[in-house]
């Protein structure tokens, strides 16, 4: 039954994360390498926050529009993830019904949600995971028909 889908049935399990003491330059490099825009931040295995590519861009002072790329990189090498991450991160439990997580994504306009089990990060649920499910369900229906 579709309504019995759990978050863990759809989430991406191999989640890329950062530590609070990572430098912004390292976080930025990870995002670029994996083509992602959000990194959950993990401290001692526990979800401590989330950082977006927007957070990194905005971490430079407001007059940074006049800074060169070299100067920006210098700044991003000095600032840690823990200094600019969002701490009160909205997460969902892996065993929660998937539809509840989807409601949060829609209502809060989140494109991804970190997934935890007893505060430990175990995955991430993204729009792409949801789209893969939509496609898989439609294909299954076609096979049945």
């Amino acid at each position, binding site marked *: 039954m*579709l*309504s019995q*889908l759990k978050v863990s049935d759809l989430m991406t399990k191999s989640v890329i994360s950062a530590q609070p003491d990572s430098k912004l330059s390292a976080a930025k490099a990870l995002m670029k390498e994996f*083509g992602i825009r959000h990194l959950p931040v993990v401290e001692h295995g526990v979800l401590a926050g989330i950082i977006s590519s927007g957070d990194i861009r905005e971490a430079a002072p407001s007059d940074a*529009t*006049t800074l060169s790329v070299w100067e920006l990189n210098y700044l991003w090498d000095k600032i840690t993830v823990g200094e600019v991450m969002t701490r009160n991160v909205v997460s969902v439990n892996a065993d929660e019904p*998937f*539809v509840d997580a*989807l*409601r949060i*994504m*829609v209502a809060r*306009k989140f*494109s991804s949600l970190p997934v935890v089990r007893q505060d430990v990060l175990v995955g991430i649920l993204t*729009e*792409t995971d*949801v*789209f*893969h*499910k*939509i*496609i898989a*369900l*439609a*294909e299954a229906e076609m096979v049945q028909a």
Partner: protein
Amino acid sequence: MLVAEIMTSNPVTITGNAPAARALHIMDEMGFHQLPVMSNAGHVVGIVTQRDCRQAVSANGYSHKHTTVNTIMSPAPIVVEPQTPVQEAARLMTEHHVRCLPVMRGETLVGILTASDLLIAFMRTLEPEPTPGS
């Protein structure tokens, strides 16, 4: 389920020669993340995102009035038809890493389909039908 059932009809658009700052203003005012870009002849020529405009405006500072939408948009967007099944739209968004598809009937823009539209539609299929009278 078809794209026509869940798309936003008559979308707000911007012309390619409009300033990026104006596109950004419209998106901020209306809560949109992207706009279809039209040529003067009324054809869809691209998609411009809030992010494209923010970057242009912050990179150029006070000279942003001179940056036009057609210099920062993504040209030749992937499009769908109203009769396209939603799973095909989901597949296109995933494969091409886009969150918005103009919906075209022939040469005419009739709607726009966003990642949010797909999520909302899927959410509705998962929610139990309200029982009459409850």
